């Protein structure tokens, strides 16, 4: 009998804890929705306050810190925004979207090294995603690491590439080889990319790059020629 009373009491306590947690979670979801409405109405302070309450009541929900980070970004408080992004990705480290959006937001905030780390983590979680791979390669190129971009994109070539979406990967390979000074490879990939380009407007960057390459090749040829005549 005493054992059963103990079981009933302890299960009731657990049930009470579960009830409390679920009520908190419900309130958090309501506060979060109110925060979004406040932000839409231009009430930044109200939006931040409500979302902070939501985060405190339900710390396991990763979406709320993302909203907070966007509010801090808009209010020009990049360090707080970064803190919230780290909190969001730490809450659920398996979901690639958190790392992806966190990386993109960090890039815009100017934390480029941290942004690349986030994008690398997102790529690890979705290794077969071509858009994810291209995004990371673009980040490597912008950071001045074309060799890393080449390594990444060369692996992607083993995936089926004879469809129109391959143009971006081939274009990025062209840009990366340009930065590495490997002009023949750059020209090869930029021309290959043009064959897969889905729309005319997507050719503009390739054509501009090819023109730069031709100028560079011509200049190199002239230099060699001038040395020969001496």
């Amino acid at each position, binding site marked *: 009998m005493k054992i059963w009373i103990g079981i009933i009491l302890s299960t*009731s306590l657990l*049930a009470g804890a*579960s009830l409390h947690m679920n009520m908190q979670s*419900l309130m958090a*979801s309501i506060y979060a*929705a109110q925060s979004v409405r406040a932000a839409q109405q231009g009430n930044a302070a109200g939006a931040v306050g409500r979302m902070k309450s939501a985060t405190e009541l339900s710390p396991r*929900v990763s979406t709320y810190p993302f909203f907070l980070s966007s509010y801090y970004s808009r209010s020009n408080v990049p360090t707080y925004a970064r803190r919230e992004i780290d909190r969001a990705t730490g809450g*659920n480290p398996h979901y690639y979207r958190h790392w992806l959006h966190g990386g993109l937001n960090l890039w815009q905030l100017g934390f480029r090294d941290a942004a690349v780390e986030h994008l690398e983590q997102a790529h690890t979680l*979705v290794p077969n995603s071509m*858009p994810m791979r291209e995004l990371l390669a673009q980040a490597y190129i912008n950071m001045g690491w074309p060799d890393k971009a080449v390594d990444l994109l060369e692996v992607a070539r083993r995936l089926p590439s004879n469809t129109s979406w391959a143009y971006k990967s081939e274009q990025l390979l062209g840009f990366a080889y340009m930065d590495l000074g490997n002009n023949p490879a750059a020209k090869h990939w930029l021309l290959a990319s043009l064959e897969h380009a889905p729309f005319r407007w997507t050719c503009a960057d390739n054509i501009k790059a090819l023109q730069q390459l031709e100028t560079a090749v011509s200049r190199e040829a002239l230099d060699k020629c001038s040395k020969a005549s001496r």
Partner: protein
Amino acid sequence: MTVIILSLVLLVPLAFVPKGWVLVEAEIAYVEAPKVYLLRILTALAVPCIAILLYDRGLRLNWVTAAVAAFLVWAVMATVFSTDPAISFWGEFYGQDGSSLIATLHYGLVFCAVAVAFNTPERIKTLLTIVALSGAVASMPVILQHFHAMPLDLLPSGVGRPSGTFGNPVFAGSYLGLTAMVTVYLTARERTWYSLFLIPHVGALYILGSRGSLIGLAVFWIVLALYIMWQHADRSNWKLWLGGTLVLMVPALIIGGMAVGNGRIVRSGEEIQGRLTIWQGALTLVGGSPAFGVGPDMFRYRYLQISPPGQRGVPEEPDHAHNWLAHSAAEMGIGGGIVAAGLYGASAAVSGPLAAVFVGRLAEQMVGVARISDLMLFWMLLGVAYQTKVLRS
């Protein structure tokens, strides 16, 4: 506690709030979050009563309780050995439905509540009547959405197909398919006026076009027809037996015709290929972690790591294997798949004509997705199966 259980049956499938009132990760938070919170809060309130009734009446050990206990124990072990026990315990998105341990434990409590509280044939009949009524009421928003007469905006953005108060036609089909089976069972067993509840069910299921639920319903009807003939026909007169069975199976053909007639079966080629890819991926996950699987609620994350590039190089991102057994095996290992099958096998073996509902449900779950409303109902029916066995013995 009876009131709590009947409230769950009536309120959870219909629970929703206006769009923008709650915010969680799910796009359909306005229909999913109220259901989750309602189920968990009401279940927590029922726990002291469940504990007292368990002390008073106890739970007998039979195939159903053994299957449920095995499933719950295996879920605990799969969580402990998960690639991320915290996610497997709390869920991939906290506060949302899924196959996390905390969600499974709540369903286990629902089973216990029904198993101990609904211990007379009259109470069971009341529960099943409320289930039939709930399905009929839940069918109405689907029908109203189809005719653009629904006063409330419950359709997810960019989705044209009606989904009632469930946010997704597949979820709606799973629930209404199950309640339709219960309604037909009641009609066959009790009184024909229960068939009135079938009218909105038929309309909603046709509008939804959810092939899984229609397949499940057809299989259910075939099994029920066979059971009725086996029990009541003169087996020595094989012509009468065969003729009666074939006549009783006509509704199954009509249901199959509905699945074809609404047009969606014609566009199935690509979707079948998509399902095959997901099932293949699920089997790959099982092969990678055969003992305890990748962990409850870890399917999406692990599948993304092996998902091949699809349209425009973007991998598919399913959060469910669209097959109950494959999903359970992927998340909880080969043992998890076995105990998941055991839930159906044990309940079908002991529940007499109600077995047709479990067989039909299993058929539907071979291609469908179990979600909070129909999952809650399924665990309640497990409780009914337990009591059916107890009352018969």
